[in-house]
């Protein structure tokens, strides 16, 4: 199976990858031009050790990895996601065990990182003083680059000497592809994107399959400003400079980032101001449509046939059908919605059933004949699924719907009692897709837990997976929700 190695740089990189995980969990397929499935190897690069966005993304990736192993022939969680460490013949050493690649040398101030005090040449010191402020020199790198790509460019260059990079290089096979995700209006992404591109293509790069990497198809998602930060004089980051920094970065990229096969640009009018937390656990920005659409770029890149590149760089941008504050699948654009509307709706159905219904449905034939007793719903496998759906997926949907610009494809995921919130429970999910209400017919229930029970009861017996297993559960519900989607929304 061919692989797609994805470098998610900084907070935006990790949030785009998190969005990708939800798409894959819902059953959106990542296949190459020949229709073959692709293995995804996400690598998060973020020196801000406490960045809550990255921490959450890692948790979501880890849960997905477990659920994929248990998913069997289910469409849910169907794409294989592997951590880099799992590709090692002999794991251990300094290989990062997590999806989050951490490398030595960043647990200190930037001045110490470059051994500023040990530099004997006065000229070099003066040059560095010209390039870096005292603040730059004294800021701890554990909090990331605080919007300073000039710091990030130096620190990140150390990554190519790590065991993680070696492992990436040795695991790379001809035909695999690479995708880089980062924003260019902050510090980490803006610094990491050009550095990584150069490292991959550099003739000095000799580790592993260096030639294959140099010739590999490399795509990048360049995320331009899409949010603002509240003004805070004590913060290192001023979002008024986002546009200026973006212009500077784009000018630099135009001249120096020239060896990518595909570049996807995405941005939005900054409509929402986030709290100004420059790093750490408080940097926990709400999910945004831009990140979700960015994740679709990854899928797009994989399925472009090799011959379409033919020595040129393909440039892509993204547009929505209607310029509205709150978007749904109907206003997003038909072509885009077709990629993931059904799959995401199926996962939303499963999340509502998990929240409101399954504990009351153990007497249903689908539960009895497949061995889904109360013990099944207490297994760690099922609890992982429940955590994924309730703690992460539902929260992500809620955040997408509350952000600006909002993408609110589903009702029922907002906080109860909020003005304008449409209450959805498993007993009545007719307005789950507010853009496409489902009407009930005489003596036939509308979209609800009951109707989904009917669909699940009508599924042919599943003989090929163990009774009472999560494999069987996910297979059954991927089929039942698919049939319900076709029934209610016309396929």
């Amino acid at each position, binding site marked *: 199976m061919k692989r797609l190695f994805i470098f998610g740089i900084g907070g935006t990189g990790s949030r785009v990858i998190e969005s990708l995980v939800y798409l894959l969990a819902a059953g959106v397929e990542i296949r190459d031009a020949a229709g073959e499935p692709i293995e995804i190897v996400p690598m998060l690069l973020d020196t801000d050790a406490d960045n809550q966005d990255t921490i959450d993304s890692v948790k979501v990736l880890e849960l997905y990895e477990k659920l994929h192993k248990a998913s069997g022939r289910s469409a849910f969680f169907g794409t294989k996601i592997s951590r880099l460490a799992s590709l090692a013949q002999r794991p251990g050493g300094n290989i990062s065990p997590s999806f989050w690649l951490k490398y030595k040398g960043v647990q200190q101030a930037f001045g110490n990182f470059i051994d500023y005090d040990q530099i004997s040449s006065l000229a070099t010191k003066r040059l560095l003083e010209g390039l870096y402020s005292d603040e730059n020199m004294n800021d701890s790198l554990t909090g990331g680059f605080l919007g300073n790509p000039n710091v990030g460019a130096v620190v990140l260059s150390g990554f190519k000497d790590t065991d993680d990079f070696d492992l990436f290089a040795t695991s790379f096979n001809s035909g695999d592809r690479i995708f880089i995700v980062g924003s260019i209006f902050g510090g980490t992404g803006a610094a990491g994107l050009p550095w990584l591109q150069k490292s991959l293509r550099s003739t000095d790069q000799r580790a592993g399959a260096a030639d294959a990497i140099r010739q590999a198809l490399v795509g990048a998602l360049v995320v331009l400003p899409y949010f603002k930060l509240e003004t805070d004089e004590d913060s290192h980051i001023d979002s008024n400079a986002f546009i200026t920094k973006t212009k500077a970065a784009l000018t630099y990229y135009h001249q120096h980032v020239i060896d990518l096969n595909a570049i996807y640009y995405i941005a939005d009018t900054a409509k929402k101001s986030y709290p100004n937390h420059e790093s750490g656990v408080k940097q926990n920005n709400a999910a945004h449509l831009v990140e979700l659409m960015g994740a679709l770029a990854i899928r797009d890149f994989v399925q472009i046939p090799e011959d379409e590149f033919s020595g040129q760089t393909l440039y892509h941008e993204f547009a929505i059908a209607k310029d509205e504050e709150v978007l749904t699948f109907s206003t997003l654009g038909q072509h885009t919605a077709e990629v993931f509307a059904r799959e995401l709706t199926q996962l939303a159905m499963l999340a509502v059933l998990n929240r409101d219904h399954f504990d009351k449905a153990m007497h249903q*034939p689908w539960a009895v004949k497949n061995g889904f007793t109360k013990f099944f719903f207490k297994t760690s496998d099922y609890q992982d699924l429940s955590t994924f759906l309730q703690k992460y997926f539902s929260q992500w949907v809620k955040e997408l719907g509350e952000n600006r610009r909002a993408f609110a494809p589903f009702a029922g995921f907002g906080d109860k009692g909020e003005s304008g919130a449409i209450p959805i429970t498993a007993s009545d999910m007719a307005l789950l897709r507010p853009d496409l209400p489902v009407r009930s017919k005489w003596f036939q229930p509308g979209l609800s837990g009951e109707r989904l*029970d009917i669909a699940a009861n009508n599924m042919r017996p599943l003989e090929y997976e163990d009774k009472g297993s999560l494999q069987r559960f996910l297979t059954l519900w991927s089929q039942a929700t698919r049939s319900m989607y076709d029934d209610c929304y016309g396929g």
Partner: protein
Amino acid sequence: MFPKAFTMAYELLHGKQDAIFRDEIYVPVGTILVISTLVLCALYYYFLNGLRARFNRTGHWATTLLLNVLLNIVAVVWVSYGLSDDANFGTAVLILCLIDGLYAAIAFTLASLAFKWLSPHARYTPV
């Protein structure tokens, strides 16, 4: 054959009674029991639980069983009403009501075991 079977079944618990029971009550009451059981089972398993999946709890099944019992008790009263002026007739009818109710419950349970396998949404009801 059926008249004889009904008579035997009722006399098993009801004992020897006036000929009027054998001639005019057991057979129609037994026939009603069979028909009501089959109709209620079919309605429960193939209509109610063929179109909906919310009536398949044991409680719903027990309610239908109770309905069958009540229906058959009413049937005994209806069939035997005005057939005799005998002072003991009323007591005998009352006992037959209880017996028929019991038989209705047993018949519904046995029919359920046969009907449930083809029901889309109640094939595990009651068990």
